[in-house]
């Protein structure tokens, strides 16, 4: 028996290790478009002052930076997108999808699946988990 299930997902609380893993994936993805994207724990505002409470974030030569601050376990997206190609709204959507995908991969691995993830057009992400006799041998 097989089924299709559609779910709505929201991030209630974040895990710092998964946050950092997520930011590495976002940096790799953005590097294909923006060049040298780096993961950082310092993100500046419009006046280049460090925004407090940032756990992890990304910067690039053409991106002033976006980061994730955590308050009571909840993620808060921070950064300044004035005159930037990547807006805070786009970054927020990207972060939510990548973080969900990272959680999915970790959960499937905990269930004994071999996992791989692929980025599809339109910012969709596919995660496949496979387990069973003979698979991958």
């Amino acid at each position: 028996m097989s089924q299709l299930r559609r779910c709505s997902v929201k991030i209630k609380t974040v895990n710092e290790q998964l946050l950092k893993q997520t930011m590495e994936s976002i940096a790799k993805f953005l590097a294909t478009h923006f060049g040298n994207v780096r993961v950082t724990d310092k993100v500046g505002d419009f006046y280049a002052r460090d925004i407090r409470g940032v756990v992890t974030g990304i910067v690039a030569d053409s991106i002033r930076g976006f980061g994730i601050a955590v308050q009571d376990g909840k993620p808060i997206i921070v950064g300044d997108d004035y005159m930037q190609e990547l807006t805070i709204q786009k970054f927020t959507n990207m972060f939510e999808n990548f973080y969900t995908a990272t959680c999915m991969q970790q959960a499937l691995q905990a269930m004994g699946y071999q996992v791989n993830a692929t980025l599809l057009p339109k910012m969709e992400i596919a995660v496949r988990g496979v387990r069973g006799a003979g698979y991958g041998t």
Partner: protein
Amino acid sequence: MSYKRIDIKIDEQGKVHIDTSGFSGDSCTKEAERLVALLQQAGLDVKTDKIELKAEYYAKAESGVEVKRK
């Protein structure tokens, strides 16, 4: 099929589509629920909007039906 597969797609609106294959009986439902429970433990708020049984489920059910002809 000797292996089990779970395909997940996160669409551009952030909706999550979970497609299970290769399971017998209602084990696909249990496996999908186990996945959802792990995601909730990880801090995600997951609400199931819709569940559809796939055609292969119905195909199996139909093959088990005896057709009597007069």
